[in-house]
């Protein structure tokens, strides 16, 4: 055996070992989701002792039919409610946040550092710390039990991180292009819209995707702000499908599948942007 081969062997063996471990972790991490999916498409009698038992195997979509028509809360409504309020809950903070970020990055503002530090402190404040006064303020404004209230809270709670994220993005851009615009007589609004925003494209997509998914996933705000069953969001419906004494696991898993499929598709379709956003959202570059 040649010397080169002998020294290579242990390396390739550890590599095979690492591949095996990696694949095993991937499998373990994914299996619970497979369990949910399988339980949603098989009759409950077959899976009551474990979804992996295959002694009897029938596939059925009856749980999906039931979740759209057989429960007191048909799922189509909440899916639509969550969808459009998440789109708006992403667009508003992205727009308002990048406007403010541009001013923070490029313009003079009194006590700018203090304002930025305060915003940073609010970035990770627990939602519980603002819940009661915010609830009362929304009540005073007549915004309880409205989509506006939920969208507003999703916007406000995400503004600090989007402002900070976009501020860093804009700062890293070449200021000369903007200066060229100023020399050509463009207004600040024109520079923001035609130079700064287009240059931030990928970062805006990252932030928008993350914010859409977070708005979709948010549970605390809909839980305390929405009471009318017709206006409920998907995350509110899922816990309600669990009965106190009896739970129809077919319906519950079908509902869970529908609710998680949306963010998973967004994530898989735009994976690079999504992961970049998640890393960049708090990390030093």
């Amino acid at each position: 055996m040649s010397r080169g081969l002998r020294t290579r062997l242990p390396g390739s063996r550890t590599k095979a070992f690492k591949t095996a471990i990696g694949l095993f972790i991937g499998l373990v991490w994914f299996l619970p989701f497979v369990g949910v999916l399988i339980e949603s498409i098989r009759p409950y009698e077959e899976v009551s002792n474990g979804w992996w038992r295959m002694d009897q195997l029938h596939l059925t979509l009856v749980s999906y039919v039931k979740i759209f028509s057989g429960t007191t809360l048909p799922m189509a409504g909440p899916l639509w409610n969550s969808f459009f309020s998440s789109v708006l809950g992403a667009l508003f903070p992205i727009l308002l946040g990048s406007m403010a970020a541009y001013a923070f990055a490029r313009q003079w503002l009194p006590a700018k550092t203090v304002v930025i530090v305060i915003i940073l402190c609010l970035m990770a404040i627990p939602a519980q710390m603002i819940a009661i006064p915010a609830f009362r303020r929304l009540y005073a404004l007549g915004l309880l039990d409205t989509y506006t209230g939920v969208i507003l809270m999703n916007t406000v709670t995400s503004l600090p991180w989007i402002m900070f994220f976009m501020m860093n993005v804009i700062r890293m851009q070449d200021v000369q292009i903007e200066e060229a615009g100023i020399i050509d007589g463009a207004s600040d609004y024109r520079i923001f819209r035609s130079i700064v925003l287009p240059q931030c494209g990928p970062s805006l997509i990252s932030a928008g995707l993350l914010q859409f998914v977070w708005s979709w996933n948010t549970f605390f705000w809909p839980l305390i702000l929405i009471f009318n069953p017709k206006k409920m969001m998907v995350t509110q419906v899922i816990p309600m499908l669990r009965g106190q004494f009896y739970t129809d696991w077919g319906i519950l898993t079908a509902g869970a599948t529908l609710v998680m499929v949306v963010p998973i598709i967004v994530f898989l379709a735009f994976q690079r942007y999504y992961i970049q956003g998640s890393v960049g959202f708090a990390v030093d570059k």
Partner: protein
Amino acid sequence: MRLKSSTLVFVTPALVLVFFFLLLPVGQSLVMSLFSNDGKGVFVGLKNFTNLFSDPSIFNLKNILRGHWPFGAIVNNLIWIVLHLPLSMGMGLACALILIDVPKITFVRSLVFIGMVVPGVIIGVVTQFMFDKSSGMVSNFFGLIGINSLYVSWFSHSNTALLALIFTSVWMWAGYSMIVFFAALTTIPPSYVEAAIIDGANGFQLLRYVKIPLIRRSIQTVVVMSVIMELTSFDIVYSSTYGGPGGASTVLGLQMYLEAFKYSHFSTGTAIATLMALMAAVPIYFNVRNAVRQS
């Protein structure tokens, strides 16, 4: 320097919203926590806070001394941090190291990260497929290897319910530290690693003395974000155990929700919230410091 009108147009909408719906509410919560629950505006000082520590659902001293569940929400949150932080970070680091060495299986990265993408309330449902006696894989695994004390529905026993939730959130959060560590590890110049190997470093020494020091900042970021998450966990608890059985798996976030929005004890609710914010102050401080240093 002169304040331009365009600056005002750019910052006003965001700052007004942040002021009225974030900053002001934080101050109001602080003030509310010092007044009586009945809404008559009687100043009670720190009484709401001292009351929390005699409320067994928050801090159950008798059970803590006896070593019996339930211990109370604040202890549960601390247990959550102590277990979740090393486990999720260790798991994330292991995944990142493996995926860097074996680029062929990067799809594993997507699989592990899915936990961070789906809603917490769904995770609370999915967890039944790990810790339920009939359909949970972890429970059945223990049954298979003959440890019958763990071949049970973890959520219906007070001494396993919280552990099941913590392990679930490890599974959920490992993806976060994985992608952050992965991104940091890819920035390490290969020459550093090669130099260490030539000097005779083994795999562990390479990790301990070369790689980990070089990703120190990322580790700090993950610690900060994880502790904040661990202190504020609510969704998965609500949708899986609702704090049960008998309060064994309750957390501060859930107790705050119950006090404020079920029992209308607003001052108790704000006192719990303030307690949470005070506990989060340390990671928030580090977050702000890192961010200021960054920009």
